[in-house]
């Protein structure tokens, strides 16, 4: 089951690092088995960071919830 709480719990593992570097990772919504997040901070403009976080967060969500499908970044 993909729930907002479970997605938040996964994001919470990396959030302190993001915040410590002047950024954040916000959960916008969870619809069906997909989630939408927004990244803020210095690293947002960096294409490498964008890819790393997109793939990394998505695979961490799938590890936690095998039925998780897609992560969208706004």
């Amino acid at each position, binding site marked *: 089951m993909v729930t907002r709480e479970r997605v938040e719990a996964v994001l*919470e*593992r*990396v959030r*302190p*690092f*993001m915040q*410590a*570097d002047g*950024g954040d990772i916000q959960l916008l919504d969870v619809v069906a088995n997909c989630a939408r997040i927004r990244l803020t901070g*210095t*690293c947002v*403009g*960096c*294409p*490498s*960071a*964008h890819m*790393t*976080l997109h*793939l*990394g*967060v998505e*695979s*961490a969500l799938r590890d936690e919830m095998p039925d998780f499908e897609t992560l969208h970044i706004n």
Partner: protein
Amino acid sequence: MTPNLPISRDTVVVGRSAKMRAVFDFLRVISGSESTVLITGESGTGKEVIATLIHQASQRKHRPFVAVSCALFSETLIESELFGHERGAFTGAVKDRPGRFEMADGGTIFLDDIDDVPLGMQVKLLRVLQNRTVERLGGTRTVPVNVRVLAGTKRDLKQMVAEGKFREDLYYRLNVLPLTLPPLRERREDIPVLMEAFLERFFRSRGEQPPEIAPVVTQAFLRYDWPGNVRELENACERIAQMCTCGTVRIGCVAASILFRAGARAPEAIAPATPSAHPPATISLDDRLRELEANLISWALKASNGNKSKAAELLQVKRSTLGDRIKHCGLGLGHPASASGDAAA
């Protein structure tokens, strides 16, 4: 930091931790030695780097250094690889070929992954180490080799001996000067130093100034467990050097797999051992030498089936001297004579 060891910018063997200082002190003590060193350490802790250093600090530094991983070959291949073969020894042996031992003549051979040498091969290796001669596969000539032997293992050989997977006599032959490399997670205080050294190297190799590192990146690296040890840290730094686009190492440069596993760790679990929290590491030369002496004497006693006169001969000391030394290093009386018949000739 290590005045007597040839450490250049590119051989990053750094560490201020007590454990690494103990390693460096040990290296300095044995730098003039010709004895076999057994280097134990998890994958990625730098066994080959240390082996290279030992070679470079030795009298043999101008002679070849040959490193060979014993895990790479099957039982038959390893014999030909180490000892060489003559033309026609087997299908495909179209010409004479010297083995690694002959190639290392006058220098040092590093036998990495010694724990992967099959039992059948171990006895052959033991013979070579004892007689310092090799016979090529399919050959009849005995070739003398003057080689210093270093061995590397990621497993506990003593444990393997107890399980019957490693020959005891070979173990004693190899374990003359034991050196253990600590995993990175047991010397976390070295992580920032290593990180800076690696990043500086990778950025400089691209002709760029070493970047500034955001403190949170160091935090994340400190919290991560580094199962691949220094090699994994080196790769993480190379990745950062390749991917960083803004000139500052920030959290977005760090691989997500590291971030998530570091984040799963409770912050209080990090507690990097600060140098001030520990007394400076000391190393007792007397204790180390006693340990070494005990090792050699046990080996000789085993090899001579407990016969002390024979053991004294093997060690090139008087019979009476051996008795004193046995007392000195606390081996005590009634040392069990080796029950196995695999004594050395």
